């Protein structure tokens, strides 16, 4: 048996923010700056990343997952600047990532797929079976663990996606639209899982469902046209809107109020 507490667990953190970006710019394609001068500091907790379609949420999350390289500005993860491939390897071991288009191998069983991802994430070989079992149990798929992925429903596939993201016990968990395809009951369970993980992890959830943010997030980050518009608690977001703004809930009114100020949200769609 390994020791329950090791030196790495007891070592003091040497950084103030898990994620820290200043003046971050990321170019997508030849011309478009999808992220355009973003300043952001995120610590432990659940951060809801909100914004209209095309606001640069996916690009931002990809950059945080280190698969896209920042064009300009600086990005620090765990207090270390992101650059070069040597350091990326150590950083990536502490990141969990669920892309928007979660691709998987249909012939793999749930367990095989999560095991494969654990191997890709360099989880120590001896810990893999336990880590896989824990991740699969956390997303409530323990009874389907040995079924092939092609036999699963869309919501279950999504949950496998979340399981592979948490299999390496990440310190930064990046989820791009994780609630798409989940039914209302699953969504409630998912919010509980988020709150649970968010106790000691920096979770970034991109979504355009304002109610997800209200229920599960400790912090809201509102982005439009690649820039940060607002960062604060869900209550602050609700307080930003008044009765004259569009929306069915205080949060939605706050959301449209803040977007109006930037010239967004009023357009054709």
């Amino acid at each position: 048996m390994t020791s329950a507490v090791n030196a790495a667990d007891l070592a003091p953190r040497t950084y103030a923010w898990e994620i820290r970006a200043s003046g971050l710019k990321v170019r997508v394609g030849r011309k478009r700056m999808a992220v355009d001068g973003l300043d952001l500091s995120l610590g432990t907790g659940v951060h809801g990343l909100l914004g209209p379609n095309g606001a640069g949420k996916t690009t931002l999350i990809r950059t945080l997952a280190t698969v896209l390289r920042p064009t300009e500005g600086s990005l620090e993860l765990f207090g270390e600047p992101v650059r070069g491939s040597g350091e990326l390897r150590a950083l990536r071991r502490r990141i969990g990532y669920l892309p928007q288009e979660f691709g998987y191998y249909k012939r793999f069983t749930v367990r095989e797929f999560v095991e494969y991802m654990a191997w890709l994430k360099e989880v120590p070989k001896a810990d893999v079976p336990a880590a896989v079992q824990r991740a699969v149990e956390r997303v409530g798929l323990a009874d389907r663990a040995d079924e092939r992925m092609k036999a699963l429903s869309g919501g279950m596939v999504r949950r496998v996606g979340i399981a592979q993201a948490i299999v390496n016990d990440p310190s930064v968990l990046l989820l791009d639209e994780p609630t798409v395809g989940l039914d209302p009951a699953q969504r409630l369970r998912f919010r509980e899982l988020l709150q649970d993980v968010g106790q000691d992890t920096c979770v970034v959830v991109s979504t355009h469902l304002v109610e997800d943010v209200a229920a599960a997030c400790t912090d809201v980050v509102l982005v439009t046209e690649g820039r940060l518009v607002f960062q604060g608690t869900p209550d602050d977001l609700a307080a930003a809107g008044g009765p004259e703004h569009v929306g069915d809930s205080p949060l939605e009114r706050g959301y449209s109020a803040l977007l109006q100020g930037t010239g967004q949200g009023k357009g054709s769609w």
Partner: protein
Amino acid sequence: MTVEHASERIIEGYARGGAGLPIDEMWAVEAHLEACRECRDRLSAAVRDSVPEVVALVETVWTDLEPQVAIAAVMPHRRRRTARLSKWLTPAMVPWLAMVVAVTLAALLLDLVDAGSRQASLVLLCAPVLPVLGVAASWSRGLDPAYELTASVPRAGLPLVLRRTASVLAAVVPALLVGGWATGVMVAQWLVPCLAFTVATLALGGAVGVTRAALWLAAVWAAVIVAPTVATSRTAAALETGGLPVWGLILALAIGVVIARRGAYSELGAHR
């Protein structure tokens, strides 16, 4: 290495709930127990002999757990091979590799059927581009559904690229060896261009995406080597033994580029 073990007194005290132990001894023995199997065994023996209430508690827990343990699914032992295989190639690559091997065999058949009427060997003509197709399949966005996940993991990067390339070569080279042996083409004559093309695909792929690089190189091959050979029906100069040093040079250059740009393979760009 000699390890100091907890004394009988401390183990006994800990088994009784630690009431008689100073707090620092308590912490020390807990930390020691986590790491020391021998002392854990002594502790369990001490509990069994002298602390009936703990024994009773453990038994209650077991009676509650046993029905759950009985119905829990046991992890199946079969399919370990799949797990080991997936470290070398993605499931998406398997049909492509099968196709590549089939093409080799078809070329070999054609070679053998009308060996007399043609000067240029089809196997020799196909050899360099075949593995390129397999390498492209292992990094293609359209063929590998998990490409974005793969790009984001710590293991992504040059080692994984080389692993997949090696598995492509492991499938293709034996097929080509059989072909070369049957048609009497010298091994170096096709193996060196074959490796040069494969590594050049990776080198170019770091900049423009592996799939795109593979398509470009295959097109260049078709235009520069295959078309003239078919038109004049004699082996192009590049494939004669005299061309070997040039192919060797290309191979060395490409290896250099791959090593210099190894960081590029851990980003999304390499998957275009």
